[in-house]
Structure formats: structure tokens, C-alpha cells
């Protein structure tokens, strides 16, 4: 039954996701086109126009990414609310499946959708960086650079800098970031679902209740995060006093892991809160 639930959940998510991907693709193409129009070699006014385009393309892309981030969160929240707590909830909750199966299917599909968007964003960033590098290499006349050579050079330089300042290689850092993003993505979905479910406690203002739950839970999460960073500050200041050299890893490594653990523990707790809301506190209009 889990497979069937996931199949229909995916069908429901598919259309808004495709729209999101089109918007991201469109923003990427437009930003790419604007990058290609940048050329400082132009004279006077056109060079200024070219610099403006550079700034404009950066902002366009930046807001595109923010739109993607908010968009996917809204898609996930609206779909969950609509299928679980509006009239459609009568169908969802009378299917011959357990609430745990319903929640699992929705969580898995929402996580996969979130990861799909993150993957698309990564592809988009890499494409734009590659395009930009290729374009600027052409401008400065470095036609001889092959992709491998350009990336090799940058990664080599980055690697040396990273090992010196971060305490790990660039690739290790990227893998850490990827792991961190995936865990945050999973926890984020559970967090959104929990907010929507907790909003149902306010029978007359369910959406407002969900927004309120979001702010309260975000505050709780941030407070725990701030508390966890206190030991890092102590280490940081004692290092300054003693003049010891600290890499980013030794300064913030443990903090990142603690922050990740807080997210995971909170997500596990919220998953069960969600399950409780969907069984014991379910009250459809």
C-alpha cells in the first residue's frame, strides 16, 4: 500500500514541481544570456551597461533561488494541508491504510521532491558558473583552457586554500555540505508537516495556527542552535587569547554536527507529533 500511496502522492506533486523546474530553468537561461552579454572590453556606455547586466543577472538569479526555496516549501505545505485537513482529508483518512503509512508516503515523496529541486539548483549553479568561466576565459583570450584544465586549476587552488583555512579538502567540504543539505532537507519536510498539523489545534484558524506553529518551532530550533554554539565561542576566544591558529573545522566542525543532531532529534520528535495529530487529534470540518 505504501507504494500505491507514494504513486498518487507523486502524481499530485508532479504538476507544481514541473512548473517550479521550468521557472528555475527559465531564470537560469535568462541569467546565462545576461552573463554572455557582459563584456568589459566594450567601450564607454556599453561597458557600463555590461556591468549593470552583471549585477542584474546576479540579482535575478539570487531571487530565483529564493523563489525556489520558498516555492517548494509552499508546494509541500499546501499539498499536505489540502490532502490531510480539508475535504480531501475524508478520502485520505478513510483509505485502508494506517496513518503511519499515509504520513510515510507523504514524507518520502516530499523529501524526494525537495531533493529534486536541490539537485536542479545545483545543476543550474554549476551550469552558470561553467558558462561564466567559459565566457570570461574567452574575454581574456584564454581559449586554450580546456574544461578539465580550468576546473583542475581552480580546484587545486581551492584545495590548498581549503586545507589551510577549513581544515579539510574542498571535496571533503563539499561532501559535508551535501550531507548537511540532505539532512536539512529531510528535517525541513517533517518540520513543515508538523507545523501544518499543529495548526489544526486552532479549529477556527487552521492556516493561521500553522503559521504560528512555524514561528514557535523555528524559534525553538534557533534557540537550541544558539545554545549549541556557545562552546564554539569559548574555543574561538581562547584560541585568540593564546594566539593559536584555528581552522574552520576545529572551530565550527563540532558545532555543525551538534546543529545537525538537533535538527534530527527535533525532526524525529515532530514526526511522532505529526502522527499523533493525524490519529488522536484529527478533526476534519
Amino acid at each position: 500500500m505504501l507504494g500505491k500511496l507514494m504513486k498518487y502522492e507523486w502524481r499530485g506533486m508532479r504538476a507544481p514541481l514541473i512548473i517550479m523546474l521550468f521557472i528555475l530553468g527559465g531564470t537560469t537561461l535568462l541569467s546565462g544570456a545576461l552573463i554572455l552579454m557582459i563584456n568589459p572590453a566594450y567601450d564607454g556606455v556599453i561597458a557600463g551597461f555590461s556591468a549593470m547586466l552583471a549585477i542584474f543577472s546576479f540579482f535575478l538569479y539570487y531571487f530565483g533561488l529564493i523563489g525556489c526555496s520558498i516555492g517548494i516549501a509552499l508546494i509541500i505545505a499546501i499539498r499536505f494541508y489540502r490532502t490531510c485537513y480539508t475535504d480531501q482529508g475524508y478520502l485520505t483518512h478513510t483509505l485502508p491504510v494506517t496513518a503511519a503509512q499515509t504520513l510515510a508516503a507523504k514524507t518520502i515523496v516530499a523529501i524526494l521532491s525537495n531533493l529534486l529541486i536541490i539537485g536542479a539548483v545545483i545543476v543550474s549553479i554549476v551550469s552558470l558558473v561553467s558558462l561564466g568561466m567559459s565566457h570570461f576565459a574567452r574575454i581574456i583570450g584564454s581559449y586554450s583552457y580546456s574544461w578539465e584544465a580550468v576546473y583542475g586549476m581552480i580546484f587545486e587552488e581551492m584545495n590548498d586554500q581549503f586545507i589551510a583555512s577549513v581544515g579539510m579538502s574542498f571535496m571533503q567540504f563539499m561532501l559535508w555540505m551535501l550531507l548537511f543539505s540532505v539532512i536539512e532537507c529531510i528535517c525541513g519536510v517533517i518540520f513543515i508537516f508538523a507545523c501544518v498539523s499543529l495548526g489544526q489545534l486552532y479549529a477556527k484558524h487552521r492556516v493561521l495556527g500553522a503559521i504560528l506553529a512555524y514561528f514557535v518551532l523555528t524559534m525553538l530550533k534557533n534557540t537550541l542552535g544558539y545554545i549549541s554554539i556557545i562552546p564554539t565561542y569559548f574555543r574561538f576566544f581562547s584560541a585568540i587569547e593564546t594566539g593559536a591558529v584555528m581552522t574552520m573545522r576545529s572551530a565550527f566542525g563540532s558545532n555543525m554536527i551538534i546543529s545537525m543532531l538537533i535538527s534530527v532529534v527535533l525532526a524525529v520528535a515532530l514526526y511522532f507529533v505529526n502522527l499523533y495529530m493525524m490519529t488522536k487529534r484529527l478533526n476534519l470540518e
Partner: protein
Amino acid sequence: MNGQINTNQAGMNSFSEMPLLQVNDLCKRYSGAGSYMAVYHMNFSIPRGRIIGLLGPNGCGKSTLVKMINGLLEPTSGSIFVNGMAPGAESKRIISYLPERTYLDNGMKVSQMIGYFADFYADFSTERAYYMLGALGIDLNARLKTLSKGTKEKVQLILVMSRDAALYILDEPIAGVDPAARDYILRTIISNYNPKASILLSTHLISDIENVLDDVIIMKNGSLMLYSPVDAIRNDTGKSVDAYFREVFAC
């Protein structure tokens, strides 16, 4: 009232087998600012093979009771057993529920909705659904959002009645449709009725359904006021169920 009616006599039939639906001392309190008891110490059982009307004025607790039987609401106290099972995934396999609300996904086509039901309910008959949709001239490729409210309700009823369930719970199945469609729906209910199954039919339109009912459960202020065969009401009071209901709940 002309005669005294024995309460719960319909549920007291000498069925040796387990009742299809057993409700024991069921209570539901809605908490919050306007805290109140929606269902108050209800006890009754429904045997197989009956069409039962669940009647009562607005706010008497019918929908709350129906939601609890379907596992959509947690009782405050008491218990419910559907074929010996507490409400859950297993009981939902044998209950075919038509809520008062339109619960279909507006983005889906009628044919997709049939596929959906066929996927989840092992007792769903696709052929029966197609036959009934064809009889009502409903386009299989139409998206639900393009259909009128009445047509959506018909589609919903067809989906529910295309199952070979043990217990059908129909909440206001004829409220939103025209009289002609009402007749069709009642015919559909009767013609698809499995003698081993029971139908619990909640409605305000008593006169329209009275002739198809075997028994009635009448609720008042969250409690069971009367559970009786329709014939017993007619014989004891000399009135139709509709007339009896109007007399009892006269404002």
C-alpha cells in the same frame, strides 16, 4: 405520539453472529472554549443485511458518530467495533463511506478516480462503476473540477456504491441532487445492495428514503433516542417515520 416504541429493538435481533457494528457507551466531547458533549453514552449494534436510517435534527451528533465509526475522530470514551475490529486500516477495508463533503481530488479525471479506488479497495468493481457512470452520462475523461457539484456527488456515490463492502455509511447522499437524480441514487443504493451488508444512511430528507429503510436510529442531543424497525414505528404510532420525526422535533 400514539404508541410507545421499544428503543433499540432493531439492534436486538437474535443474530447469533457478531454484529457488524457495535457501539459501546460511546462519548465524544469537543474540547476548547465551547466545550460540549456531541455524543453521549451511545449504545447500539447493527446486524448484517439491514438498511438503517440515521436521523436527527441538526447538531444532534450524527456526523460526529459517523466520523468516529470511520476512524476520522477519536472517541473521548467508549468503544466501537466494526466486524469485531476497532476503527483502523482493517475496518476501513470493509466500510464504504460517503461523506457529506466532496472529497475527490479536483485535479483528477473521473477515470483516474476509478483507478484510484480500484488500486486501494480490493472490493471495488470497475465494471460496475463504468456501467453506472455510463447510465448517468458522465464523461470519464472529464476533470472533476469541470463538473457541477451535483455531478461530483453522483460520481462520489457511484465510487462508494461500486464497492462490495460489508458496511456502507452514506452521509446525506441525496441532499445536493435534483429529484430525478435522487430517484436514481436510491435505485442505485437498493440495486447494488448486498444482502449480507448493511447500509447506514444519514439524512434529513426522510420522506425520500423512508421506503427503502428497514430500521431507523434517531438521535437527540447526542444520545440515542430511538432504534426501531420502520414497520414498528408505523404500526405503533400509525404514522410514517417522516411524520413521526416532525412531531417529535416540532419547533
